[in-house]
């Protein structure tokens, strides 16, 4: 039996310890804000935060996060009003929106580590997250806005 804390709640898993965290979160727990995009840590749609680090849930096993605190988009802020989430809304960032929860988690992790990133730092830190709709200009501006206060 594996015990994992997700958004402050303890969750048990007695299945395959190698099950990717993404599918545990989505299919077994039912938190669907974390998205599947590539399964190979290439696109960032499944980004969650583990111990203040952005992590790709699609290549992280459930057993990798034993005794660690996992935060998904649902747990980022109690009312959904994290500075990054607010900036995203203010900047009308999304088109289809599918990658945006991963983008937001990546941005939130960036700002934990570096509260005032430069534009170059934003572009570098966010370049692991693909947006096929091509919202990059707005994402970059929203991260900047979140870092300077919304």
């Amino acid at each position: 039996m594996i015990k994992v804390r997700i958004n402050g709640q303890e969750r048990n898993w007695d299945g395959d310890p190698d099950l990717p965290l993404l599918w545990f979160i989505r299919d077994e727990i039912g938190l669907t804000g974390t998205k599947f995009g590539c399964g190979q840590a290439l696109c960032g749609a499944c980004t969650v935060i583990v111990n203040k680090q952005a992590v790709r849930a699609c290549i992280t096993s459930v057993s990798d996060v034993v005794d660690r605190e996992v935060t998904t988009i649902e747990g980022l802020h109690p009312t959904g009003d994290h500075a990054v989430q607010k900036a995203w809304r203010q900047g009308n960032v999304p088109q289809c929106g599918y990658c945006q929860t991963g983008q937001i988690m990546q941005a939130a992790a960036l700002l934990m580590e570096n509260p005032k990133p430069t534009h170059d730092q934003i572009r570098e830190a966010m370049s692991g997250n693909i947006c096929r709709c091509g919202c990059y200009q707005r994402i970059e501006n929203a991260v900047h806005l979140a870092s300077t206060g919304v």
Partner: protein
Amino acid sequence: MNIVTNPNKLRGIESRIKVENVSRRSILKGLGIAGGLVLAAPMMSRQAFAAYKTGAGEMPHGTVVNPRVFVAIASDGTVTIVAHRSEMGTGVRTSLPLIVAEEMEADWSRVKVAQAHGDEVKFGNQDTDGSRSTRHHLIPMRQIGASARTMLEGAAAKRWGVPATEVKAVNHEVVHSASGRRLGFGDLAADAAKESVPSVEGLKLKDPKDFRYLGKGQVGIVDLRDITVGTAHYGSDTRLPGMKYAVIARPPVTGGKLVSFDGAAAMKVSGVEKVMEVQGWPWPSKFQPLGGVAVIARNTGAAIKGRDALKIVWDDGANAKYESSAYRTELEEAARKPGLVVRKEGDVDAALKTADKVIVGEYYLPHLAHVPMEPPVAVANVKDGKAEIWGPVQSPGGTREDVAKTLGIPEENVTVNVTLLGGGFGRKSKCDFALEAALLSKAIGSPVKVQWTREDDIRNGFLHTVSAERIEAGLDKSGKVIAWRHRSVAPTIASTFAANALHAAPFELGMGLVDMPFEIANIQCENPEAAAHTRIGWFRSVSNIPRAFAVQSMVGELAHATNRDQKDMLLELIGSPRIVKLDSVKDLWNYGEPYDSYPIDTARLRRVVEVVADKGGWGRTVPKGHGLGIAVHRSFVSYIATIVEVSVGEKGKLTVHQVDTAIDCGVFVNPERIESQIEGAAIMGLSLAKYGEITFKGGKVQQGNYDDFPVIRMDEAPLVTNVHIVPADADTPPSGAGEPGVPPFAPALINAIFAATGKRIRALPIGKQLET
């Protein structure tokens, strides 16, 4: 109006009418393929009251303008408006209801949007493709809103015992200004529902000067908050009690078949519950599943792991000979020989012979995959002869038809719930993934989700075609272009519908080949044969991508050959402001629109060039090593011009410093979403120009994920993208915004690279061509 108070009732669950012989999508008409009788279903009106005509009535099931179908008002004043088109990021789920709200004087903050089920008899055509939603539905949505407003006003006038002409709906209330009385929409809902629906012909639409929302761009998309907090519901987010999770191993070669499989090892994987064959259809079979072996499990991760353990023997079939490098040669050779003439003005052969100089450009563009961030996925629950589907489908009505046919049950027994689409780009116009889920659910007797992995998406999709484009331009002594021959060779989308389709369909010819707008005395367009060896499908902008690339690259080549400015060359080729006559083109396809309403107007084409040149600073001095490029293209009946500033650094490192795009899409609803579409089009254009290439070896796709089929990431995105929307008056028919931004980007980029480096790229992707 309490037309209904329960918004769920709006969504098409009740009162389904059985329609016999309604079949397939309008594509079949264009292809001239027998067997698809497209029946015009009952509808309120096709075109009535439009200031201009559109092709909306020609789509399967046309349009419906009954407010009782689209609008509900609750007694608390909440207005629910139905969105009957699919949301894949264009903003249509916001913009169409916004039109209704505008016209009925609803306060947008008190409007809720309900997504329609797939039911075209009830809602009219729901195919969300072809950049059609606004241009086909602006007037119908206004009529729906005006009807609702008229009914509210009628109810208030009766309540007060005054003539209806004395009352007016204003911002969620009806006002009788003579007496100062006013009643909220909620107070009037029950009475308004009793009013008869006014005739469309008698409706009075708002004066555009009174618009509060239309054309303003201050309204965020309705799903904005849900997207940012993770509650937005996409195809993969449906969860049903007892639902199983499945992935499918499909034939790696198009037309291949399952010979045998061994699922023993897969069954040993923790969480795997069942391994079984899935029915496939022979190629080509429109959107029917490819078949293969399904692994069904308690979660998706287990299903994927189980699939990895399958042992399968395939019969690859005839397409195993498909090799991209050899096929490229085949296409390029075909483009050097005469082909089917599809447009002819003057005498190109004679003019080329007498020309002082002939410039030849041979261009090649490979297959592309859509790779929407959300791979195809669907949930199905089939039981007791009924099917319910949840999925990210661009064609809810078509999906319903196809599920019914595939399962052999009547259409009224199929419910298609349309989720948000995590990107579409044409991929999700093909409902094979929903059909797979339906077949599997029926077979196992429980709800099931079929999830495509990224590898499935890239290897078993409906790819953008591969093409060779060859243009010969003849110049006279003065440098004027007197002859233009364009040969376009590419496997056709029609090959996905019918075997032995070797020539482009009219809708493909009309995308940048026969509609070429230049004023040249001798023009000939030809379409040599090309056989398909994989499934070809619509990809955002479709054939416009290779044609705009070839035509606009050639403009750059001609400018260089004659030592002229690219923009001046472009304007000279476009020629005088006029309506282009295309009398020599048989079956001219004008994006399904009547030519009278949507002609090729070179004044508008010239204007976007001039606007982008002005706003984008054409001719400005750029730093050493930088270059500017320009391109213009009309597609989806919109006019778009793009300027790109690029630099090429060490080892060919490409930096896009600035992109400026001018778009004239007629009268528009939500300029903020047009901007986002055009910003995104630059990214997609850059992705396909820099990296986009799917190749085949032994009939199999060689790529599988974002590592070997890369798309642009933020660190290589343009540093600045500016969008300039050309204002249009309310009488200019609306045109497309979702797709037309893509085609001009790549040639503008390539022209800019030439300006920066003197290197002319004629084959995409750029890949490593700039490294040497």
